[in-house]
């Protein structure tokens, strides 16, 4: 029987993988994939807690909003990455290094 714990383990794994991706990837698009994993791990938590825990729908409602926010955030981020590519012909984050000090 699949229970709350299984969902929590999967979501914790997703969160860790997402953070790992963000911290280790060089390509901006890969980093954004990591961000998606982090946000969706929280979604999984919210829906699982709503289903198995409290029994109210607040968590599922929250998750719907998070999906919208995730889409908006990635849309803006991809637009910025696209501008980066136009200006420097690369989407490698290590080459965005004018600002320092």
């Amino acid at each position: 029987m699949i229970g709350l714990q299984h969902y929590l383990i999967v979501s914790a794994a997703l969160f860790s993988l997402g953070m790992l991706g963000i911290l280790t990837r060089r390509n901006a698009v890969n980093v954004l994939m990591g961000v998606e994993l982090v946000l969706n791990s929280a979604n999984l938590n919210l829906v699982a807690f709503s289903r198995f825990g409290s029994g109210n729908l607040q968590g599922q409602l929250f998750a719907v909003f998070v999906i919208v926010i995730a889409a908006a955030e990635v849309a803006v981020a991809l637009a910025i990455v696209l501008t980066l590519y136009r200006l420097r012909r690369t989407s490698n984050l290590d080459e965005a290094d004018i600002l320092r000090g």
Partner: protein
Amino acid sequence: MGSVPDVLTSMKRFEPALILTGAILLVVLVDATGARWRDVAGRILTVGGLLLALVRSVELRGVSAEIFGGMAIVDPLGSFFQALLIAASLLIVLAFTFRNSRELHGLGQGEFYALLLAVTLSNVLLATANDLAMLYLALEMVSITSYVMVAYMKGDRMSNEASLKYILFGAVSTGAMLYGLSLLYGLTGTTSVPAIRNALAAGIADANPLAISTIALLVFSGFGFKTATVPFHFWCPDVYQGAPTPVTAFLSVAPKAAGFAIMTRFFYTGLAAPRTGPWDLAGTIDWVHVLMVISVLSMTVGNVAALTQTNMKRLLAYSSIAHAGYIMMGVVALSQNGARALMIYLLAYLVMNLGAFLVVTLIHLHDGTFDLRDYPGLYRRSPFLTLAMAVFLLSLMGIPPLVGFMGKLYVFAAIVERGRSYFWYAAVGAVNAAIAAYYYARVLKTMIIDNPAAEKPPFRLALADATWVWILLLGNVLPLLWWARIDGWARSSLSLYAGPPS
């Protein structure tokens, strides 16, 4: 909850946000007409909308209630922060124009006003959020709209890089915060902040104290990002340097104030036990000491890193990290006086920091430089601008009789009155204020004493620019004449609506 009369009453109390929403739509429509007058009309609509929202939010300060079935709150604290946040946007639109900013010159204006109004709207929502979903939505809306504002100079590599760094740091810290919020929902079974407090106070049978501590730390990463406190400050100098200066000035004040507003609200409402005192519900972690360390680190890192900066925007960025550390002292004090100190400090920070950024913008307009090494000789070229800068920097230093001094006075008083064990903390703050005095004074010395390498033509200041420098200048001095009223306003705004009694 959710009945028609409830929605109608809520709408009335939600008016500042509704006015701002209307203004955003109108500005976008006007910009889409493509007419020649669209820039002027957009500016007038923005100023009008902000003024109207400001008036409405001040009028609402006597109300204390939940609106929209507990999603948001109207209370004196919220009204204070709404007024502060809307006033910040108003000052930005009026004092920083597309004419006096060399970076924004020639770019489309409509989008800028729409984005500014959108950040203001989300700031206002963030300061009054009462539900985890609302809190997260407002926080993300502030972030996403400010990413776009930072990247406003589309063809500029610095602006683009700044925005990219901002997005990546923002996505990580708000992602971690969201994970914390989801766990908090799982633990308490509700997303309403007062209900979370009640659930935690009632005690959860198998709750591990470590779990609550982890949650609180994860949630704090979002607040830390918004207020730019160490260790969530890495984006701050790069973003401040790369963004167009009006945007930098705005980001240094408004989202920081909104971040402190929601931090106060979340910790005082959500994690404060009704009887035993604040923060007892935040697990085994000694929150006072965690925040104290964060505050001390912010001050020290900000001030020490600012010592060697030669780019004025970067210098002010590190100084803003240090100021976040001072403001945090008000949160650490955990008292009514602490919250009042936080509000007074943010008010003072608004006028002194915007003033400093305005002078930096005007110098950039004439000389095209943000580099401190190009500043010598400014005193002879424009005594007025140099003296204005002196007032703003002395205010940031905390020298009496300027408002910055009052901010520091309230913050340090709130800490010292907490007792002997807090003295070392106040002492660290004082040492930091001394370090800060050094680099602010260095800027003044460069402007007044140092000899320029080459003679440059004298300054010609537009009348509008001179007027706004004067207004901000007086804003640093005159409030002391009516200090009792300002103090009274902050004092009467201390009441926090903490949900229906359980």
